[in-house]
């Protein structure tokens, strides 16, 4: 609402909401992230792209505090922060839709959407208010086939689960919203809704990180694009400085023209 005009400016005017400096992460002997630098700006959609296994999900799980980074610095709104648990991230105002969703199968849609942040009246859960809010939010995401918001999520279709996870994340007015391949399982109409939603979130001033393998989506919705190649950032640039072919080259080989990683970057 606050930014009805879409400004795809080439330089970052604002202070980044999130800045990563040289973060690394290994699992046992497997080095997944090698010193990643990344900046995410308020009011902008940053598309995070990269090949399968490039480390995108690992990166955002680090930001979310699911598994802390091994080294490197994280700044949130200019202040250095420690992200050691999802609660740290939630406290700062980071909301994430995970690729592997993480819904509690034994709970219903409403219960999952408000998990950890239930509405209460006194001590008692305010089921009615939560049910209504859930139904509204889901309705806006074009889920027409969901029979009931009191269905267990274990009985949902792949796309329906995905939608619930997205709805859960956008319910909260978080400063930074990260979506890991949110449209992967979605139908045509639902994908449209999610792309619109992402745009609207950014326009309302939120910082958005959007992971996808779909180049059409990237060029439709993103303001900036960050390409990850084998756990290193090959480029982190405004969208209008690159075209589709370049992005694909960055993804598959880590280089495109003068953009990207040099051979010695890959040593370490």
């Amino acid at each position, binding site marked *: 609402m606050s930014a009805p005009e879409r400004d795809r400016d080439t330089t970052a005017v604002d202070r980044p909401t999130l800045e990563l400096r040289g973060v690394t992460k290994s699992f046992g002997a497997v080095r997944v992230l090698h010193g990643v630098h990344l900046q995410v700006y308020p009011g902008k959609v940053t598309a995070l792209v990269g090949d399968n296994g490039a480390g995108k999900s690992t990166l955002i799980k680090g930001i979310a505090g699911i598994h802390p980074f091994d080294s490197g610095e994280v700044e949130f709104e200019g202040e250095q922060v420690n992200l050691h648990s*999802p609660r740290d991230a939630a406290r700062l105002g980071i909301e994430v839709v995970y690729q592997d969703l993480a*819904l509690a199968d034994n709970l219903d849609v409403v219960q999952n959407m408000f998990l950890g942040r*239930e509405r209460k009246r006194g001590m008692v859960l305010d089921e009615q208010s939560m*049910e209504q809010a859930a*139904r509204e939010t889901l309705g806006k995401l074009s889920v027409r086939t969901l029979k*009931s918001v*009191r269905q267990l999520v274990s009985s949902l279709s792949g796309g329906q689960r995905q939608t619930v996870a997205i709805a859960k994340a956008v319910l909260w007015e978080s400063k930074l919203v990260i979506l890991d391949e949110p449209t992967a399982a979605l139908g045509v109409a639902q994908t449209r809704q999610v792309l619109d939603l992402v745009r609207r979130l950014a326009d309302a001033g939120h910082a958005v990180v959007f992971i996808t393998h779909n180049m059409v989506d990237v060029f439709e919705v993103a303001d900036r694009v960050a390409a990850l190649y084998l756990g290193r950032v090959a480029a982190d640039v405004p969208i209008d400085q690159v075209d589709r072919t370049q992005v694909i080259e960055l993804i598959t080989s880590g280089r495109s023209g003068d953009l990207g990683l040099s051979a010695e970057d890959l040593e370490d």
Partner: protein
Amino acid sequence: MSSNTLTAAEASGPQKPAAGFEGDRQDNTVGGAVRGYLDKLRGGDLGALPAVLGIITLGILFTVLRPGTFLSPINLANLAVQATPIIVLAMGLVFVLLLGEIDLSAGVVSGVCSAVLAQLLVQGGFSWPVAVLAAIAAGAVIGLFTGSLVGMVGIPSFVVTLALFLGWQGVTLRLIGQGGTVPVREPVIRALANENVPVTIGWVLAVLVAVAYAVIELWRWRAKKAKDLAHQPLLLVVVRVVLMAVVVLGVTAILNQDRALSAAIELAGIPYAIPLVILLLLVVTFVLSRTSFGRHMYAVGGNAEAARRAGINVTRIRVLAFVISSSLAAVSGILATSRLSSVTPDAGAGNTLLYAVGAAVIGGTSLFGGRGRARDALLGGLVIAIIANGLGLLGVAAYLNFVITGGVLLLAASVDALARRRAATAR
């Protein structure tokens, strides 16, 4: 919290608004409600049905075998009191099982707490409220210890509680002394399982419960109807209210009869333990189904990682589950002590724990976490107690007693399993 959400306008899309959810627009007629229940059954959500069926089947069986005695008021009163320690223990275990954990030490913890109670009363000469509170506090502290080892250190609960199962047995043995027993003659403690609520007070309580239930149900129905949310037909609500009244008043009527076997004495009224268990049942049900703590328990049990990612303090939930479980174990120990008016060094050892877990599972609680209710403990505990009660009336040889108990348990469990299975594969 509502200020924290995107407003409807912010989140709304350009396209047509809400659609679907036809399942939530429920059929508000009686037929619709019945059909809804049948659908739920067919969908595999059997709820309390298998345990209730088990209770009814066993009840019929023993009534046929011992027509004069099984359904006599005195036997029903006995049955109710016999079931209380196991029900309370199982109720505590539901919390632990909900998380997919196990507490093998719950039985012996109830023993340790009884020993604490007994020693404070007998050696320490404390008054009963002090001793009871101390026993429950001991339970809570023990639970805190167990829970920390499981939740913080991260040792599998099976191993922790196996170790503690042995350890606490030693402690009880030390407190009571080898081969000894501590007799507990405190009248209030003894009264719990051995005395009855005066007949008039019993009636007053029963009427109060029935009325309160009716008021709450009707009030809820009105509120829902006013907000135009899904609600049951009034007739069904009324039927439920009447049924509840009949059960509560009926049980009261039976227990308020004079059930003494010799004419010389009088023995009537609801044993004190029963209102205690009902109170616990209500509290636990409330906590599990209507508070966010309860909600978080289910979430951690269903998918601990999802719960963690949702910002739930999973460690805290784990620790609390053990604290509650052990505190209820203490209560169970107090009830058991009251029944025998004494505490022995092997209190709570043996099969106590297995029976309690069995009760919860037969009631419908899953050992894999995420599914369970307070009433599971009640119903399952009754099944187990009926088996012992009925076999006691039959009076068979020891080996047959083992075999029959096992067989009946198996039967009860297969009714359940087959019903669920049928439901799962049915159309």
